[in-house]
């Protein structure tokens, strides 16, 4: 299986299409960094406009952690679409090229073949997120320096000390990885049914867009079903940037406000991955390869 995974990873990174996502992310991150570098104070004034009269926030507000937080909020909506470009192509792309029939005639079980493809697409997702970490977090830390992080929510502003942020980013990136692999598994599942990659890519994107809209709508009809949408749980990474509070309302550094909820979201995403990959294997094992 290790050999097959290496082959699949090799094939992914030999395709020019693979690098579209890396270039797109680099372009978006660079633009955000440039905008905040040139005109960041205005953005901060806007974000803190409701509280500036009440209290003064000191220190270096526009720092690497803050910039990365903005980048993650922006990118983690769009990166799933980039993940779908590759994951939805894993089987359907092979069918379209005509190479799927050659792969299936090799002395490897279909389950092994499919799992190696899924793991390879997950390696790509990890590489993509590492790329975001390198240019979004580390490069921002290099350009803007580090200080405490302001997490401005609609109903409160959370201030995190500089020495209490980095580990949260590590956890957030790990969670985001899980979320993106969930998207990848969905694209992979759709990929089993098609003989060109366009259909599965569009289908994956459509599901993400529709579910995201439904997840964010505050309509009672959808409230009960929202918890089952994986898109609802994909933003669980934000939970790492909230702290527990004392009875007096003081934040407790080094804590996560609702860890069970974050873990539950991770569990739901993991269940989705297992379901999509399991279903893909069941379908693929019975599939007549006619391409």
């Amino acid at each position, binding site marked *: 299986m290790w050999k097959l995974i290496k*082959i699949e990873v090799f094939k992914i990174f030999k395709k020019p299409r693979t690098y579209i996502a890396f270039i797109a992310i680099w372009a978006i991150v660079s633009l955000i960094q440039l905008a905040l570098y040139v005109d960041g104070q205005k953005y901060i004034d806007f974000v803190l406009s409701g509280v500036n009269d009440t209290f003064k926030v000191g220190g270096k507000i526009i720092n690497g952690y803050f910039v990365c937080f903005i980048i993650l909020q922006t990118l983690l909506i769009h990166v799933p679409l980039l993940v779908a470009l590759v994951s939805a192509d894993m089987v359907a792309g092979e069918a379209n*090229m005509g190479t799927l029939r050659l*792969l299936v005639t090799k002395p490897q*079980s279909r389950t092994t073949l499919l799992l190696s493809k899924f793991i390879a697409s997950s390696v790509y997702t990890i590489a993509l997120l590492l790329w975001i970490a390198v240019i979004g977090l580390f490069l921002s830390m290099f350009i803007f320096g580090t200080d405490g992080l302001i997490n401005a929510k609609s109903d409160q502003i959370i201030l995190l000390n500089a020495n209490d942020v980095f580990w949260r980013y590590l956890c957030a990136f790990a969670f985001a990885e899980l979320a993106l692999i969930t998207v990848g598994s969905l694209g992979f599942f759709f990929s089993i049914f098609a003989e060109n990659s366009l259909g599965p890519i569009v289908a994956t994107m459509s599901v993400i867009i529709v579910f995201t809209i439904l997840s964010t709508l505050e309509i009672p009809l959808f409230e009960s079903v929202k918890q089952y949408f994986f898109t609802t749980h994909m933003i669980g990474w934000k939970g790492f940037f909230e702290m527990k509070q004392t009875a007096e309302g003081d934040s407790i550094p080094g804590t996560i406000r609702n860890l069970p909820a974050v873990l539950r979201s991770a569990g739901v995403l993991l269940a989705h991955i297992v379901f999509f990959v399991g279903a893909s294997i069941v379908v693929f094992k019975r599939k*007549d*390869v*006619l391409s």
Partner: protein
Amino acid sequence: MLSSSPFRGRRGFTPYLCPAVIIQHNMNSIIKVSHLSKQFKELKAVDALSFSVNEVDVYGFLGQNGAGKSTTIRMLLTLIAPTDGTIELFGYNLLSHRKEILQQVGAVIERPDLYKYLTGLENLSIFAKMSGIKLSKQQLMEQLELVGLAQRASSKVRTYSQGMKQRLGLAVALVHDPKLILLDEPTNGLDPQGIADMRNLILMLSRERKKTILVSSHLLSEIEQIANRMLIIDRGKKLVEGSVDELFHPDETIVLLETTDKIRTEAIIRQSNYSNALINVDASGIELKMSKEQVPAFTRFLIEQQVEVTGINARHTLEDYFLKITTANQHVEAYKN
């Protein structure tokens, strides 16, 4: 699991050196297909097909487009699951010993589609690894040399011509030194030189490397030139199977006779011992069916009867038979539709 399996202990073999394990196990029949059927919704693509391919056979699999050749080959490669029937390869049930059997099988299925964004060498290396063997670059280059692609080993496959892709597809099929090679319409899309090269390569693999080869085609002449045994199928059913020598040199021959006076000639034939041989009279001439040995005597008889012959043409009944098949109403387009 396979205590007496011929596939055991075959790791790391040197290409071109057949371990001949199968021969030692006294398995004359490499492919044995029994009552194989495949139903695609309304279409029965393969219908109770039975045949066997012996060791070192070049077995021609003949039929018009949509006859069920590709479906059968795909079932032999586990790409498609049979609706009914059994397949034994090397004496073992294909479905229960899939992995071990496929280590001994190489195939080119219809178009030779490979990774266009990779080089020929990279393609070959990938499929060698997937077949469970690790070859050095030199060994891979030797394989490419065999199919005449060594000079283009580092070129991306997207720059290859159709013939080069076909040859690379064959190199991929051969890279793990399989005992059995399945070729589905290997000359499709090739120019005359490419067809001749492919034919020579198939013959070389059979004669020099002792490979068992099943090759499908819709062209009778192609099969005639390379196969020693053959099967003709139509609409998924077996029509005829046997040695090419027997089928191409049958006892009976169709004689098409053209004369200056067709009516008189017909009358002479009807009054002679050849009356039973007469099968048809139409604008193209007079058709008779007789053994090959009878033809010289028949021509002498015509001369004695002072029949002015303007043309005489003897064709094999198999050719006639196949022509009937190929010109029949077009079979409902296969499963792809």
